[in-house]
């Protein structure tokens, strides 16, 4: 290897080390956010509760798509969604948004527009109650229509208040 090449390589390595050091500094937070344990707990709780709601929804759509839905199973899922919807507004205390740095899809809009958020959650609750009644009726056409309406109330809220991930 010639001396010229060695000089180039050492320069290249040197530049790499400097860049890496500077970049490592860029990524470091000046002051880590201290999240109260009850806030961390509620952020974790609401993620798992929404997973429960998603699971119940999937069970409902699976039944509907089967062509021969099993109503007792649909009833169980509908009641689960209704019960969870009643608690939903308590899962978003002030200070549990993206500013915590925790893993949450909640957008800051929830706390910037509390009235809109309350309206969205209330719509979901109302439709979840309606849907639970409709499932009792056993009328599949109405169940299908109300399930769609209930789903629309999820999507309507997510469009504004949840970080889009797919």
């Amino acid at each position, binding site marked *: 290897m010639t001396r010229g090449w060695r000089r180039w390589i050492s320069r290249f390595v040197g530049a790499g080390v400097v860049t890496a050091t500077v970049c490592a500094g860029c990524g470091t937070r000046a002051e880590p956010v201290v999240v109260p344990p009850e806030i961390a707990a509620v952020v974790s709780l609401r993620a798992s509760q929404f997973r429960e709601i*998603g*699971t119940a929804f999937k069970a409902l*759509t699976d039944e509907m*798509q089967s062509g021969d839905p099993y109503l007792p199973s649909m009833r169980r899922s509908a009641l689960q969604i209704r019960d969870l919807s009643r608690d939903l507004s308590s899962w978003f205390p002030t200070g549990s948004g993206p500013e915590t740095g925790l893993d949450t899809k909640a957008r800051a809009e929830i706390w910037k527009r509390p009235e809109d958020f309350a309206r969205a959650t209330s719509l979901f609750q109302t439709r979840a109650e309606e849907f639970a009644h409709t499932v009792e009726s056993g009328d599949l056409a109405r169940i299908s229509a109300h399930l769609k309406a209930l789903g629309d109330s999820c999507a309507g809220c997510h469009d504004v208040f949840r970080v889009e991930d797919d």
Partner: protein
Amino acid sequence: MDIGLSGAPQRIRVWDLPTRLTHWMLVLMFVASWATAEWRLLDWHKRSGYAMLALVLFRIYWGFAGSSTARFASFLRGPRAVREHFRELAARHRARRLGHNPAGGWSATAILATLILQVVLGLFAVDVDGLESGPLARWVSFGTGRAAARVHESVFDALLVLIALHVAAVVFYLVWLRENLVRPMISGYVVPPPDTDLHMRAAPAWRAWLGALLASLVAGAVATGFRF
């Protein structure tokens, strides 16, 4: 080599019609799937996905039953052949070959394999609300369906990279070797390198029809979630 009446080298067949149709329909369905996903037209996204499934199934079948240039056995070569190909490329030497070059064969196969993975993930994917799902999602949990949806998104990025490489290679061949790879994929014909005795062994049309029928039947069955 055949010489035409004008004395110019004659074109010979390189890609049969099923191979070309599959290629361009895959392009069309890829764009359609992308657009329908972006616009959240999930019903249409599913339809383009089923069409994509039928196309990849047909292409795999045609890789075994199709004309010689469409067959995996004719274009999947070992690392030595790929290295040799890159050496030829560096020397701007156009090899005596008909169909995929050793690098192109692997590129096409990588795209096909990734498309299969993408379609399969879509079949099991579940949206964030648990409301929309692929036809086979009832066989997996909500969590698994969500994971499939997330990987579906990452694999789409991988597809974009593979397709970008594929297109870049086509442009490179045009600039570096003055070889237009797009025209033969449209017309089916190519002017072969001089002093060669290459020809494509064409597969009979009935085989293509049989493959199209089988691929459509399987894709149709999957679309119903195997509920008949």
